[in-house]
């Protein structure tokens, strides 16, 4: 073969060019920002048994038939503070709606810090302390905080959002829960 080196050089060049093209073409798309980021989507929601600060217990099985929004958060994460007004607004609007329940579960925080934050920020919805929270955060395969899930009345996870909730995503979540009865 004449000048095999030339062919080797061009072959290497072709590989590099292909790699560059793959990169360039795929740089534009960003599938990150949507609801369906959790692998648990469509699966039945893992049960959990948590305690609230007033001593009452919260079990997912007891909430069957209702749409449940589970919000993993803690007192020291910035995006959690960012989404707080959204949660508070939503709770005010749906306080009397019995078919929807919101539950805050601490992720990587101490009970004391959670209780202080919940009190200071007037989080009126059900907030669990850290007993049993750790196994719930693992069971739901959470990847950070804040992360929220919506569980249909039949007990299936039908939506998830990693990152702070917005009014738009909040409505989407509730809709998803109510549609998938």
């Amino acid at each position, binding site marked *: 073969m004449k000048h095999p080196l030339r062919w080797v050089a061009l072959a290497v060049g072709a590989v590099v060019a292909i790699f560059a093209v793959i990169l360039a073409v795929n740089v534009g798309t960003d599938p990150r920002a949507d609801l369906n980021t959790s*692998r648990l989507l469509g699966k039945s929601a893992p049960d959990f048994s948590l305690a609230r600060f007033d001593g009452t217990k919260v079990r997912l099985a007891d909430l069957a038939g209702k749409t449940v929004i589970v919000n993993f958060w803690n007192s020291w994460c910035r995006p959690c503070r960012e989404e707080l007004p959204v949660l508070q607004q939503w709770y005010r609007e749906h306080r009397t709606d019995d078919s929807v329940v919101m539950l805050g579960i601490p992720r*990587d925080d101490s009970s004391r810090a959670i209780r202080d934050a919940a009190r200071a920020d007037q989080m009126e919805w059900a907030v669990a302390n850290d007993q049993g929270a750790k*196994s719930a955060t693992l069971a739901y395969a959470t990847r950070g905080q804040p992360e929220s899930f919506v569980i249909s009345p039949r007990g299936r996870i039908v939506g998830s959002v990693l990152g702070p909730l917005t009014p738009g995503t909040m409505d989407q979540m509730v809709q998803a829960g109510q549609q998938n009865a």
Partner: protein
Amino acid sequence: MTTSARRLAWLGLGIIVIGIVVGIAWPSAAESRSEHVRRLALEFRCVDCEGLSVAESATASAAEQRRDIGIRLDRGESDEQIRAAYVESFGENVLLRPASNGIGLLVWALPIAVVLLGGVGVFVALRRWSRQPRLVATDADDALVAELRTPVDDD
């Protein structure tokens, strides 16, 4: 050193090396539960970290995951089942060692193929070079040299 003494010395070395291989390969005591947990935990990526394994990370989620691995082992789950369970929940990218099926096979096979190919190439090149016949003087060359060496008649 005489040839036979040298041979003996290398033979002795060979025996020692065999002994070492046996020593390494000898079945060892079964690993403890904590060793087992740690071995598995090294394979999973901690979700709150930048590429650290669950074994090495100090975060609460990693600690919980290590506890969970222990619970699963106590329940009798096998390594494969535990891996599958985590992949099921977290996705394939929770495994720090890519699975060897599917596209993951490439990342294991390609380097081995490259090194083997390169090795073959080097080997072939070395053989080719050492096979090239060394130039040996022929009779015609000797005659030429003799002719040139005879003193030229001076006029």
